[in-house]
């Protein structure tokens, strides 16, 4: 397979063309809104596609460390996006349950450790999101 230019670069090129070439040619207001949303989404998807599998794999390990669970990642496991996303959701559920328990027991130290994982997650989410422009709202 041809891997270059990578997916993120192609998505960015499409977003740039939509903005520079297609957008000025469109007069219909609803179509403009939809195009603006599509362009922003493509830019986010560009940032996401470049790193999302690596980010999920890293965070699964971070969650397991924070909740005191043995590392689950084994050599040769599937790196298909859907499989990694499923393992990420399972780890996230374990993190959610640990958060619930920490609140119930009033364990502020544990809660602080678990919150660190959430803080890292938010930092990456902000990297994906970039600037939020509420296209389509009055």
């Amino acid at each position, binding site marked *: 397979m041809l891997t270059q230019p990578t997916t993120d670069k192609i998505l960015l090129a499409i977003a740039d063309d939509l903005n520079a070439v297609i957008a000025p040619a469109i007069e219909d207001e609803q179509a*403009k809104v939809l195009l603006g*949303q599509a362009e922003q*989404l493509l830019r986010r998807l560009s940032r996401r596609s470049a790193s999302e599998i690596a980010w999920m794999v890293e965070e699964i390990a971070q969650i397991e460390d924070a909740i005191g669970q043995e590392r689950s990642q084994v050599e040769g496991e599937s790196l298909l996006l859907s499989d990694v996303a499923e393992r990420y959701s399972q780890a996230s559920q374990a*993190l959610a349950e640990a958060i619930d328990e920490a609140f119930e027991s009033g364990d502020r130290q544990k809660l602080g450790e678990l919150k660190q994982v*959430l803080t890292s997650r938010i930092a990456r989410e902000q990297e994906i*999101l970039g600037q939020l422009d*509420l296209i*389509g709202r009055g």
Partner: protein
Amino acid sequence: MQDPEVMPEKITALLEANGASDITVDGYEAMTGGYSRLMAQFEASFTIGGTSESGTYVLRGDPPEGTAIIDTDRTQEFEVLQAVEPHLNTPAARFLDSDGAFIGTPALVLDFTTAESTLPWIEQNGLTTLPEKLAELAGAVHTIPVDDLPSSLQRPASGDPLTDQIAMWKHTAHEHVEALPIFHYVASWLDTHRPPSVPVSLVHHDFSTANMLVDEQGDLVIIDFELASVGDPREDLGYFKAYAQAAPPDIIDENPEAFLNRYREITGFSEDQVNPAVLTYFLVLGVIGVVSQLSATGSSMARGNTSSTNIAFTLDGLLFGQAAWMAATDALEAVLDGEE
């Protein structure tokens, strides 16, 4: 609703069914800014109840099935609009097509308003007296007698709106297509930091500059009650601040004391019940109504039941929200720790 060739005939049929005669409809044109619903404006003249009238009207209807970013009911919206219209500066709801028999989708017809969108108005005129005007609008919404509201409007099932909203955070996390640990954190945090209660009232639930206009007198006009329910009125204040983080400016922050004093004066709430820290609490709690709807449609798309650019785009608002909620809980915790 997108075809200007057929819509005048459909609107005419709706008006006829509501007892209007001598009807002409033209100038049908789609509008943007409806967010969750399809919107169009048109010119019409007709006679109803022996009175002739003519003017501009707005048609507001459901988008095609499976593409809506939130799921709400036009009949309830119509009933709420009719109930609040005597109390608020809001365009009157005129006609309802509850099942889409005439328009092709459930829809309602509203009076058109010439008031301007709030953010462009602020760009041109500045914030001037808007903090007090906003307090007066919020106060007017929150002092409508609950008994005047339609019985179909949802009331707190547990009897306590905070308990219901916190439960909705947990429910949303449970129902979402993937695990949401930040929602778990927020729900538990909200549960352990409850402010003093206030009486329930109408809650708009999308109380933001996106649903406000400024009229010729400089007064705020409020629109779009599709998410309204009965709950804790401070949810609207918190939601307003949350939305303003994504679409500034925050009118409340321009003059918080003027806003809070005027709001407390109108509602009769105490400083313990409404203060900057309480607003921060509701900045988090108050968004769950919209967030749960976005989560549900996002999950539906992930499961292959629906698909649209708008749904995917709007879901990204949760990324912004998660950062804002965690920052708000940190800020409020610092304030509360300082008080101990």
